[in-house]
């Protein structure tokens, strides 16, 4: 590096494609691993920017100043972090140490909205749709759903690379243009998710009541004779509604609801109200 300092800085400070890719890899393969309660993902940000920034700032003091910035609080959906880090890298590359305040402002102002979008797309919607399909297929001992899921997530690598390049090339101005479009996309894909969830209620929630009414010689099974006649999946719908309702109450956490269901099932099994469907 000492040789580089003698050359005209404007030439040496430009990052090559390979160095940018290296930053991207360092982020995407380690983005959450440095997570702590004080600065959240900051250690991972510092780790991923470290090499690229060293190239931009051959001077030790400038480098430390810039790196101190990276150790500040940062938290975003890892997949969306590419855009922000790409944009901040481009800014530091262009303006050097003068850009530090602007970079910090960019990071703080973007991580909120980008997480909102990223969390709902990458943490809720995709896992919902893929999880429902793969989980449902797995219950029938079919591995294809799980394999497709893995392949889709491998393919997402190129999507993340594309996002990183968008951030690097368009910098700050992309927020306004991309923001509104992505909200519409999230809204639309929720519809797909809701349809899948609706179908899940009747197919994967299993409640079976083995009770039978005996009047003389005629036996009437409560499950097939009454409940299924009213509506297929009547009990699963009622239970789903009850859980949905309870989750809206502050005092009920998912863990408590899981325990409640286990308790009800144990009681149902002991009394014979609930059984295992053949």
């Amino acid at each position, binding site marked *: 590096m000492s040789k580089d300092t003698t050359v005209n800085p404007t030439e040496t400070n430009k990052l090559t494609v390979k160095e940018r890719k290296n930053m991207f890899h360092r982020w995407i393969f380690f983005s959450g691993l440095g997570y702590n309660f004080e600065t959240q993902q900051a250690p991972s940000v510092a780790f991923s920017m470290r090499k690229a920034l060293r190239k931009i700032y051959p001077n030790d003091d400038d480098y*430390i100043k810039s790196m101190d910035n990276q150790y500040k609080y940062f938290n975003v959906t*890892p997949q969306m972090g590419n855009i922000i880090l790409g944009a901040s890298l481009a800014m530091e590359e262009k303006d050097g140490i003068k850009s530090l305040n602007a970079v910090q402002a960019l990071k703080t102002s973007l991580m909120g909205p980008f997480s909102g979008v990223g969390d709902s797309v990458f943490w809720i919607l995709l896992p919902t749709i893929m999880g429902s399909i793969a989980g449902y297929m797995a219950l029938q001992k079919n591995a294809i759903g799980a394999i497709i899921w893995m392949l889709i997530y491998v393919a997402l690598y190129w999507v993340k690379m594309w996002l990183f390049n968008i951030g690097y090339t368009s910098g700050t101005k992309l927020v306004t243009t991309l923001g509104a479009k992505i909200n519409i996309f999230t809204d639309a894909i929720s519809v797909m998710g809701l349809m899948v969830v*609706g179908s899940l209620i009747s197919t994967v929630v299993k409640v079976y009541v083995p009770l039978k009414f005996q009047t003389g010689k005629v036996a009437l099974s409560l499950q097939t004779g009454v409940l299924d006649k009213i509506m297929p*999946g009547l009990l699963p719908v009622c239970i789903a509604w009850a859980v949905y309702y309870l989750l809206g109450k502050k005092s009920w956490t998912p863990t408590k*609801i899981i325990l409640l269901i286990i308790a009800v099932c*144990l009681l149902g099994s002991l009394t014979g109200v609930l059984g295992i469907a053949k």
Partner: protein
Amino acid sequence: MPTFLQNILIIMLAAYMAWDNGTGNQITGNWPVIIGLLVGLIMGDMGTGLSIGGTLQLMSLGVAAIGGSSIPEYGVATIVSVFLAIRTGASTGTAIAVGLPVGMLTMQLDIIVKIVNNFFAHWSQRMLHEKKFDKMDPIFYLTVACWMLKYVIPIMLVVLFGTPIVKMILHVIPAWFTNGLTIAGGMLPVVGIGMLLRFMPVKKYLTYLILGFVAAAYVKIPILGIALIGGAAAYAIYKNNSQNLVKSDLQQEVEGDDFDE
């Protein structure tokens, strides 16, 4: 496959899962159905792996670690459940009832790891200030190792000591109890569904929820077909809304111009 090799592979899977789940890759993540498939393959019983993984997957739908919050570790629960079910022959429900508490305990480890990581973060920044730049990467790799221990420790304990304990429990508990747990295994996916509905715009798009239900319960369309119909509906809504967006943008511009004049 010899059990010793299986044990090693399971522990390695736990380490990989921790790493993958902490990044933006999520190729195995800690998604139960994928982990279930992998554990099933290692243990030589893919069917059990898939059915337990599938059950836990549906249970955990919508339970997301948003903003770095700590949630029950369903991936760990899956490894434990599948491993013990195949080793001891426990039923799906019983295996899950053993696996879930381990997943919940791992959640506590997650909190400890995130506290310890804070120490590493300060250490690495101190090295920066002392201009020992080449120390920063090794410190970060220590953080990564610490992060992996979060899953490796509980899984290792279960792999080493779990089987005899669970076998003993299975010997003691009565049939109605195991039956009850199996019934619970069938009913628990409802928790994930409820969580999801809480996250999604149910009130705005209730129509599509009902459509999905009717398509599955009455028309008996398989889930992939329903996903395709949903995709078509999503595409139509996306197109419609983005046209509206363009229109409202134009209107705003026109209004803006008027204001300037």
